[in-house]
């Protein structure tokens, strides 16, 4: 396209990197937080601050809860457009039950899927969901938002923009652009090995930003590449739904064939049947896993065709000891408890897929590796942020002379998506501590209020960002950066303090008790506060020194 291949790749890197960088920094940051999503849940829902538990007795504790669960208003609202006519008050025909827990979850998540009468597609299912304390079956109130696993985590893969899956598509395209940016970045960066350790903060802002951009991009290159790639692989069914569209016939043929081959009935028989003891099935499943040298706890349990003669119970192992997301599923006939099938070892392709998805989804138990993932994610954020800063730094004087506000807009968006994003996350956690336990009549539910606070805080930060970046249009440093860094520093102290005031769990107590989920979250925020304060002080010094010389405009990729 341009003079030569390298220049063309530099053009792609700059413009597609800039455009999608704003999305990617959000994905990387909330992805980093998602590594400890369940720990953030503990912080946000004090009632769940106890130790992780193994899955409790199905027969004694879980069954009555399953039978009691009904879909919540949100699920009903979602299903309404899929039905001809009104939804029933009470759903009776249950299809499936499921329960899910991990080694990091004190609480147990339970699902029940019901038939929907008069649905346009007869396969439509409506789900009821409940989170319980496995020690006694007590339910967590439905209006509590799991800020980590039900907000920050979905935010990172869908921007919680669910209309027509648009959010998923935006993130998917951004992920592809991440891969593009990595490859084009390598093509552009001529001294990739020689400058591996190079960081020159004392030189011009352009040089030091570029050094940092290259450093954070190159040292974690395999990490960045694999996370973007495996993210795409995980949602391949959304991006290329070929098996449900063009080749649906092949998919359906396979399902029937598989049902016949595995002996797991695809449809209910229509004949009622009582369930045998599921606890006994769990014992047998664990015995079989141990016999294979893969002893473990139950991670996922599912009952298909509940109370039907064709019913079967599938029990999967919680994958904690390896990267690959392997289920080692064992399936039992629900009415008798006989083993119908033990999932065979995966094929070669299956193993590759399990490894790649497991690498991303992190069900393994390895605290050091988790923290290393957070480090990698934050390095990714730093790479993207320094990319923006380099872009603005390189062009702001030029744009000032040409009376263009391009650099100012990019800088404002940079503030919004970097410090603004931090402020929004902290604002949400603070709202979580300040909102009343139950919202008064007529107000949205507590969980919904927390989400509104998140977005409102971010919009406010954006308004501040655009207002306080005016000097960039004159080629100067924007005060917005320093001001938002200070805001981050303050909020990141307020949140742990509020945790102490509202729950009594201050750092001495949580560290003393070894309750790391909450201690870790508080320490992470306090560390962030210190870093934000240091950044603010540095920006203050830079603004005061006002060394505005005619710094030459650098070509990225040159020395």
């Amino acid at each position, binding site marked *: *396209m*341009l*003079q030569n*291949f390298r*220049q*063309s*790749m*530099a*053009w*792609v890197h*700059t413009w597609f990197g800039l455009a999608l960088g704003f999305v990617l920094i959000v994905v990387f940051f909330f992805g980093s937080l998602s590594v400890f999503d369940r720990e953030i849940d503990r912080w946000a829902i004090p009632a769940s601050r106890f130790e992780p538990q193994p899955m409790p007795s199905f027969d004694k504790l879980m069954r009555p809860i399953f039978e009691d669960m009904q879909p919540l208003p949100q699920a009903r609202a979602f299903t309404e457009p899929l039905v001809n006519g009104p939804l029933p008050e009470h759903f009776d025909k249950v299809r499936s039950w499921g329960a899910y827990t991990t080694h990091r979850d004190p609480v147990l998540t339970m699902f029940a899927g019901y038939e929907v009468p008069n649905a346009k597609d007869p396969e439509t299912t409506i789900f009821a969901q409940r989170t319980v304390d496995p020690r006694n079956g007590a339910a967590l109130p439905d209006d509590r938002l799991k800020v980590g696993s039900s907000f920050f985590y979905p935010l990172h893969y869908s921007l919680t923009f669910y209309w027509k899956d648009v959010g998923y598509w935006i993130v998917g*395209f951004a992920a*592809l652009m991440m*891969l*593009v940016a990595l*490859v*084009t970045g390598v093509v552009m960066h001529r001294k990739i090995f020689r400058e591996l350790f190079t960081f020159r903060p004392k030189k011009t802002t352009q040089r030091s930003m570029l050094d940092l951009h290259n450093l954070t991009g190159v040292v974690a290159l395999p990490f960045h590449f694999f996370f973007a*790639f495996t993210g*795409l*692989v995980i949602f*391949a069914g959304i991006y*290329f739904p*070929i*098996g449900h569209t*063009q*080749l649906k*016939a*092949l*998919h359906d*043929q*396979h399902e029937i064939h598989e049902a016949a081959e595995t002996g797991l009935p695809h449809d209910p028989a229509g004949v009622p049947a009582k369930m045998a003891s599921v606890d006994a099935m769990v014992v047998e499943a664990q015995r079989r896993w141990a016999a294979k040298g893969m002893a473990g706890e139950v991670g996922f349990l599912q009952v298909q065709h509940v109370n039907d003669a064709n019913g079967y119970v599938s029990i999967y192992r919680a994958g904690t000891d390896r990267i690959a997301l392997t289920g080692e599923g064992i399936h039992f006939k629900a009415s008798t408890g006989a083993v119908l099938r033990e999932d065979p070892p995966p*094929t070669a*392709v*299956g193993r*590759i*897929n399990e490894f*790649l998805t497991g690498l991303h989804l992190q069900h393994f138990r390895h605290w050091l590796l988790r923290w290393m993932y957070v480090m990698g994610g934050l390095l990714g954020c730093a790479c993207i942020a320094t990319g923006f800063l380099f872009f603005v730094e390189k062009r702001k004087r030029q744009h000032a002379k040409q009376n263009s506000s391009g650099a100012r807009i990019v800088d404002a968006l940079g503030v919004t998506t970097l410090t603004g994003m931090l402020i929004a996350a902290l604002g949400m956690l603070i709202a979580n501590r300040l909102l009343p336990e139950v919202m008064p009549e007529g107000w949205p539910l507590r969980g919904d209020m927390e989400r509104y606070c998140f977005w409102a805080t971010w919009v406010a930060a954006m308004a501040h960002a655009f207002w306080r970046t005016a000097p960039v249009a004159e080629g100067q440093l924007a005060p917005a950066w320093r001001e938002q860094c200070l805001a981050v520093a303050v909020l990141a102290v307020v949140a742990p303090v509020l945790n102490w005031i509202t729950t009594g769990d201050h750092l001495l107590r949580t560290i003393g008790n070894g309750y790391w989920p909450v201690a870790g979250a508080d320490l992470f925020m306090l560390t962030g506060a210190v870093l934000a304060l240091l950044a603010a002080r540095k920006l203050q010094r830079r603004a005061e020194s006002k060394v505005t010389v005619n710094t030459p405009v650098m*070509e990225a990729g040159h020395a």
Partner: protein
Amino acid sequence: MATASISRLNIVSRTLAAVLGGYAFTWGLIAFGMAAMVAADMEFHDAEHLTALIGFLVFLTIFLTAFGARNITRVWAVLLVGASVMAGAATLIKNLIT
């Protein structure tokens, strides 16, 4: 950066080729790959996963080529013809084996 030498049309054309052309070609590739592998007795989900892995890497390559190649018309031709031929072949194979 010598941007004066690229026309707006060139940029739009290459971007569309990279994004839409790339998507269409990748769809065709995955569809053809899946149908062919299933016809060759590979398990359905294995075929699905393997073609998706290859597909994303191919999409990445197409994207870079759309901006790196000298002649964008040739790129368009390959993408459109390739997408249609492969997608067509996929449906043909599907009809033969279901």
